[in-house]
Structure formats: structure tokens, C-alpha cells
């Protein structure tokens, strides 16, 4: 009950109240993971220790963790931005794929450009492809009423099929040794470099998170997006162009996801290869909700999930634990952070303030 007495360090209290539910959700998810590990006869402490070692143990491990974190930040920001406008972007996966393949294509098809210019061009192409892929559900939602959850799910699978086709057809790597469906390696001039163990893509991601935060909290556009998300009817009566705002929210969301896909292609994988980024769109949902739909929260939660993904291989090798346990823990984190009711009951937190996430309802609503 101490929480109710007003204290001088009020902002610390606010931060604590915002992060305690995600923290407890993470803890609960790890506990569920530990139980499953125990049941399967593995030692949870050993497994988690190996996971931690694999994520941060040395410079190489750290590098891989940051590589895994980077696209998660973008996907999380994409989902977050749509959430703010009251839209559920299940389509980050498809937008990311479209961005990744466009960047991969520009990365190998254009030759003889100076490095920085080539990177910028490929990134722009990837962003544009992602933005276009966000524009479709945006327009459909605003002007025909088709719910974005349905259309983005369908667009995801169209993107999977389309990129598979391109990678196995017209844009396939035709070099003699290659038999699988993938694009050729990108030119060296299109590769995003490293800063010691820190990928430059990661730094870009942090910068973008700042920009998105600024946009949402300090600009008119951001204000209008937030207001549409809180109450689109009221916003329309206040004179806002709600349809245009919803469309542009999905365009920005698509752009961010496309950006993430491009950064992954240009900075990590070095080419487009189908299946390499499967599931990232859903990871984006987890990351956005764990981060309480706050760009800085997204960075932190991406680091967490990125560390889990980065350390999974070492865990599998050292502790002989299949890396899929990460998916189980992730799904539980998603469950507990959304089911804050459960968390609050378990840990007897009476009232929760700050960082509430407004979510859209199902596709029956307009």
C-alpha cells in the first residue's frame, strides 16, 4: 500500500509502475520455461546460464545478440506505431519481407556505386517497398472498411509466396554452386558495416526509435495519430482527417518494418534468403506489448528477445536444450504481459497506472 502515498521521486514511481507488469511477466514466463525444462529432464539454471553466456559472454556473442535485436526493434516500432493509431499491424512480417527482398535486389543488381550511396539507395528502396505494403491495408481499411487484421494476414502470405517466387525464379542466385532459392550476395558497397561488435544497423535502429518517440510525443502528426487511436469518432468531429491518418499510420508502420528487413539483409545476412526472417512480424507484436507501446520500451524488450535468440544456439550446445524453448518462453511473455489481470492477481498488485496499451477489437468492428 506504500505506493499510494505521494512521494517526492514521483517520476521514479511512475517508471516503476509502468515497468513492473512487464518485468513480472518476463519473470513468470521464465518460470514457466523452467518448469517445462524440469519436466523434460534438463536443468533450468544451467540452461538459463548458458543462454546468458551465449547472449553476452564475449564480443562475438554480443555482436550476434545485437544483430538479432536490430530487426526486432524495427518490427516492434512498426507494431507500436500502428497501435497508437488504434490499428493492429499483423502485417509487419510481409512488409519486412518486401523491404528485405527489395534491398537485397538493389544490393546485388546495382554495381559500381560508392559505398554510402549504395547503402542509402538500397535502404530507401526497402523502406519504399515496406511503405507500399503498408499502404494497401491502410487504404483498404480507411476506404472500404476491410479490417486490417484480415488484410495484413493475407498480405503476409502473399508476400511469402511472392518473395519465394522471386528468389527461386527471376532473381535467383545463378552461380554454379547454388541449388537453393536465394538471391545473390549483395555487393560489398551495399554492406552496412560494424562498429567493433556493434552493428551500425543497431545504431540506426536506436536513432529511429528516438525519431518515432519524438514524432509521437512532440509533433502535431503524432498527436493526431494518438488521438485517432484513443477515439476516432471524437477525432473526426474535432476536424481531423481520420481516414488519411489511419492510412498514413499503416504506411509509417510498413516503412519501419521494411526498413528493418532492409537492415537485416544489408547488415546481417548479406543477401535475401526465404525463411531467414520467419516469425519476425509476430516477434514485433511481443516486443511492442512488452515495451508497453513505447519506443524506448521497444528497445529494451528487443534487447531481451534478441539476447534470447542470440544465446539460444550456445544454450542448445552447452546445456543440450532445444532452442525452441525460447518460443515457448516468448509466447508466455506475450500471454502474461497482455494478461496483466493474471499478473496482478498473482503478485497482488491492486492498481496499475501508466503505460496502458489501447488495443483494437476484433474484425467485427469498424
Amino acid at each position, binding site marked *: 500500500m506504500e505506493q499510494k502515498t505521494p512521494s517526492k521521486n514521483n517520476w521514479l514511481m511512475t517508471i516503476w509502475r509502468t515497468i513492473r507488469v512487464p518485468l513480472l511477466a518476463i519473470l513468470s514466463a521464465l518460470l514457466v520455461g523452467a518448469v*517445462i525444462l524440469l519436466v*523434460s529432464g534438463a536443468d533450468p539454471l544451467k540452461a538459463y546460464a548458458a543462454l546468458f553466456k551465449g547472449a553476452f559472454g564475449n564480443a562475438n556473442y554480443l555482436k550476434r545478440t545485437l544483430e538479432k535485436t536490430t530487426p526486432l526493434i524495427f518490427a516492434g516500432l512498426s507494431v507500436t506505431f500502428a497501435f497508437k493509431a488504434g490499428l*493492429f499491424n*499483423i502485417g509487419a512480417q510481409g512488409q519486412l519481407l518486401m523491404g528485405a527482398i527489395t534491398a537485397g535486389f538493389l544490393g546485388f543488381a546495382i554495381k559500381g556505386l560508392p559505398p554510402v550511396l549504395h547503402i542509402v539507395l538500397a535502404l530507401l528502396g526497402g523502406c519504399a517497398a515496406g511503405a507500399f505494403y503498408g499502404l494497401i491495408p491502410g487504404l*483498404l481499411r480507411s476506404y*472500404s*472498411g*476491410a*479490417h486490417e*487484421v*484480415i*488484410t495484413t*494476414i*493475407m*498480405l*503476409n*502470405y*502473399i508476400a*511469402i*509466396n*511472392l518473395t*519465394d*517466387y522471386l528468389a*527461386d*525464379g527471376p532473381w535467383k542466385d545463378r552461380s554454379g554452386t547454388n541449388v537453393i532459392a536465394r538471391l545473390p550476395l549483395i555487393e560489398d558497397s551495399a554492406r552496412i558495416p560494424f562498429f567493433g561488435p556493434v552493428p551500425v544497423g543497431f545504431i540506426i535502429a536506436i536513432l529511429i526509435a528516438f525519431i518515432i518517440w519524438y514524432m509521437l510525443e512532440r509533433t502535431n502528426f503524432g498527436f493526431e495519430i494518438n488521438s485517432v487511436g484513443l477515439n476516432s469518432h471524437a477525432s473526426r468531429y474535432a476536424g481531423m482527417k481520420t481516414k488519411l491518418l489511419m492510412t498514413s499510420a499503416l504506411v509509417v508502420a510498413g516503412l519501419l518494418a521494411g526498413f528493418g528487413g532492409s537492415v537485416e539483409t544489408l547488415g546481417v545476412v548479406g543477401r535475401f534468403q526465404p525463411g531467414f526472417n520467419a*516469425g519476425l512480424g*509476430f516477434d514485433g*507484436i*511481443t516486443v511492442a*506489448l512488452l515495451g508497453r507501446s513505447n519506443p524506448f520500451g521497444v528497445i529494451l524488450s528487443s534487447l531481451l528477445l534478441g539476447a534470447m535468440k542470440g544465446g539460444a544456439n550456445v544454450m542448445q550446445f552447452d546445456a543440450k536444450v*532445444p532452442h*525452441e*524453448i*525460447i*518460443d*515457448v*518462453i*516468448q*509466447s*508466455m511473455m*506475450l*500471454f502474461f504481459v*497482455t*494478461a496483466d*489481470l*493474471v499478473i496482478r492477481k498473482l503478485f497482488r498488485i491492486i492498481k496499475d497506472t501508466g503505460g496502458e496499451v489501447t*488495443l*483494437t*477489437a*476484433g*474484425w*467485427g*468492428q469498424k
Partner: protein
Amino acid sequence: MTVGVMNNGKIRRRPAWASPLIFGVIVIAVAVFSFMKNPSVTEAVMSAMIRFAVPLMLGALCGIYCERAGIVNIGIEGQMLLSAFTAYMTNVWTGNLILALLAGALTGALLGYFLAVISIKLKLNQIIGGTVINILAIGITGFFYQVGMTTKGKFGPIRLGPLAKIPLVGPVLFNNPPITYIAFLMVIISHIIFFHTRWGLRTRAVGEHPRAADTLGIDVFKTRYLNTIIGGALAGLAGAFLTLEGVGTFERNMTNGRGFIALAVMIFGKWNPIGSALAALLFGLANALQTQLQFMGINIPHQFIGMIPYALTIVVVSGFIGRSRPPAAEGTPYEKE
């Protein structure tokens, strides 16, 4: 928003299965024609169509039960995957196919119950609930699956006596393994349930306007729980089909998006069992034809065939051709007054 046209102040309703039915008639005409020219190929294509369509039909039925009662279920994929796994494991351990089938259905039903608790009791966002199921299923199946397990076999076809002797129709429809028959039966039974029984009427009422239903004494929560659980069991059958009839073994992430195609099939079939079944058969046929054309040297990239269900779904939800409209109260938790 209604499906139909105004005519002298009366709304003349076009049934939801009308447009898929037109497709169906065309398909049958083409099939009969090609059967006269080349019986064995036609039979093969038609059988492949059925094999592809059955899990989609069952998955779409799962969606219909949940969504008609007002629960959005995007976790069909996960329900199918985990059920496929438990059915497979039961088959590995016991060698009893009936037990394996029941294990699959039970797993689906349990996940349906999980989704129901998430959406009814905890009042969580149902789309996140479905996402949790999907990620969880990938994690659990991947974690517990080990390569190199073997089973004693899978369901074989059961000939339905003289019916199986009818040319074309017999081998395609009446010489199938059991889950295929169950799927077709469930489509018909579900259609009768939804449109000709009190339970169905109540379910639809709960999905469209729960408050009104509640006022009339219908137990909204019970209706939603039961329908979501039944739906889950059907998705479980779809999963069991994959490991016990279709492929015969388990592979990591073997559903491969079928749960989402089922969702597309459901929407394309306008939340109607027969409409969805016809849609599933249509997509099944497209796939079967693509494979057949490949044998004949005509190569349409399979990815383009793969896109059809999704593209058509976007078209129908956008109302470009005959709008497909979801139940009105879908996705919103019900609060009793």
C-alpha cells in the same frame, strides 16, 4: 452491408454459398468432360483436390464455430500444429490410430478452451490470444520433437460398398480414409446446426448481438465456451489429418500456413460451413491442377497458385465483389450488466 439486393422494399438474400456453388458447378462440368477424355488423370487430380481441401475444411469449420459465437480465432494454425504433434506422438507410443485421432481432437479442444478463457474470462485481446497459441505451438512441438521416431502406419482408405464403384465419383468420394469422411459429415452437420437448430440460432445471436441474446435468457458465456471448444476439436481433427492420413509423419512447422488458408477459406465462404467447404475444394483444385500441369510440362509457379486464397480473401473483405461480412460482435469481450 447485407448480402442481397433491395427489391420493392424487400431484401432478397442471396445465400452465402451461392458464388462458391457456381464455381462448384463449373468444376464438376470440367471434371466430367476431362474424365471422358482421360479417366485416370482426372481421378488423380480430384483425389488430390480432396486431400488438400480436407484440413482446410476442418480448419475453416473451427473458425466458423468460434467466430459465429463472437470469438476471433487466428490461432487455428497453432491448434492444428500442436494437435498434429500429439496425434503423431500418440500413434508412436500406442500404435492405436483411433486413440491418436482422439488425442488430436482433444488437444485442439484444450487449446480452444485456452482461447475461450483468454477471451471470455480474462477479456484479453483475442488476436493476441491467437498469436500466443501460434507461437506456443511452434515452441512446444519443436522442443519435444525428436527426429527418427517411427509409427506403425496411417489410416488407410475405407471403401463404402457399392458407392465406391460409381465411375469418377466412387474412387474420389467414397474410397477415403476416415477423417475425410468425418470432415464432409461435419460440414453438413454444422450447416444444419447453425441454420436449422436452436443451438445454432443462439450461437449466431451471441455473435451478432450478445446483449440482446443475454436479455432473452441465452447464456452468452456458456455458448461462447462451448463453440470455441468444439471449434478447437475440429482444428484438432485437421491436425490429426495431417499426421494420421495426409503425410503420415510429423515435421517441424508442418502446418505451413494451412491454418491461415483455413481462415481465408472461412472468410471467402462467408462464415458459412457449406460455402467454406466449397471454397476449400476450389483452392484444393487449384493446387491439384498446378501439380498436374507441372507433370504435363506446363509450369505455373506454385507460388502464384498459393497466393490465390489470400488475394481472393482481400477482394471479398474489401467488398469489390460481393462483400463478406463478419459477425458483428466479434472480438469484443462481453460484460454482463
